């Protein structure tokens, strides 16, 4: 339900990028979302057109890349994939792990139109 707020934040950020690069519009916006970020990609995808309406990115393709959940074990050092509600080490089973991928909510890149079409 907070995906609309996230979509609005995304539009603001892309607007900043367009302005900084003196571009005309954005044609592709790539966002990387980990399941642990608490944002549902499908809902962000449907909220984006509402937030982008009338802006210089209203025709942009929103490419949502899902990041896998990976943890690094502080006990045995292994890096393994993990489930959202079971962030334990896949090798030794210890719960003293650090999430190294899967909690990102990142504007990764933007493709900009530099000449009016």
């Amino acid at each position: 339900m907070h995906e609309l707020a996230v979509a609005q934040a995304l539009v603001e950020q892309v607007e900043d990028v367009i302005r900084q690069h003196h571009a005309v519009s954005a044609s592709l916006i790539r966002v990387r979302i980990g399941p642990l970020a608490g944002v549902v990609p499908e809902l962000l995808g449907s909220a984006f057109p509402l937030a982008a309406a009338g802006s210089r990115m209203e025709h942009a393709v929103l490419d949502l890349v899902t990041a896998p959940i990976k943890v690094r074990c502080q006990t045995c050092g292994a890096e393994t994939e993990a489930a959202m509600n079971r962030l334990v080490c896949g090798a030794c089973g210890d719960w003293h792990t650090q999430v190294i991928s899967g909690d990102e909510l990142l504007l990764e890149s933007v493709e900009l139109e530099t000449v009016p079409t």
Partner: protein
Amino acid sequence: MCDTCGCNLTPGNRHLAFKPVAKGATAVSVLKGLLQKNDDQAGHNREHFDRRGILAINLMSSPGSGKTALLEATLTALKDEFTCAVIEGDLETENDAERIRAKGVQAHQIVTGTACHLDAHLVHDALHHMNLDGVDILFIENVGNLVCPASFDLGQHLNVTLLSTTEGDDKPAKYPVMFRAADAMLITKTDLLAVLDDFEPAKAESHLRDLANPAPVMRLSARKDLGMDAWLAWLRNELAAQRARVALGQSRRPAIQPDGQTYHAATA
């Protein structure tokens, strides 16, 4: 901050940092947290708190798990020791703020309307309506919701997540984003355990550990004054820790945040 140092780069996304350039178009690598504006405001709020030596605590839980009752009991217990202030977040009504004011404690109510969470800007606006002189601990009671509040940094130093015995002991497994963010988990309404046969505090704690979260788990009943001593001791401890940080010019972000900082330290 993450937008300038590149500490948002992880092994999973580093290869995407540079994009090929297409004809008539430019590809720009951004690698910025989507909620950067909120996070910047949150950092600003945190500076406010640190400058005044205030410990800011964000209380999160589902509706009805006893956040306001916990605050009432806590404020009563600490009234001769510390000056506290409270920011209340609810979709509607001033009811919770009035309950806090009845304890003689300053409270500001944020009425979010339909918004399901507080964000750093709402908290900043609330701070302008408050007198923070002499305040030791600021409690921010977030909107009752186990989903959205976990994604927004408010500028707090600590997240405290409540889980009441009338819910289920598997809540941490069902709402991992929320419980991963907890710096302390409080199992509330423990006086009801005697009549509930389906809530095992040890199971709730085990689900929390499955989220790789080492946060302390405290069991208490605010209404029946059970287990409050451990919680109050934790608060005193954390306030002392905050004062020690402030004296050194340091600050602290909630437990869920340090991953990026750890990366920064590792790659710097």
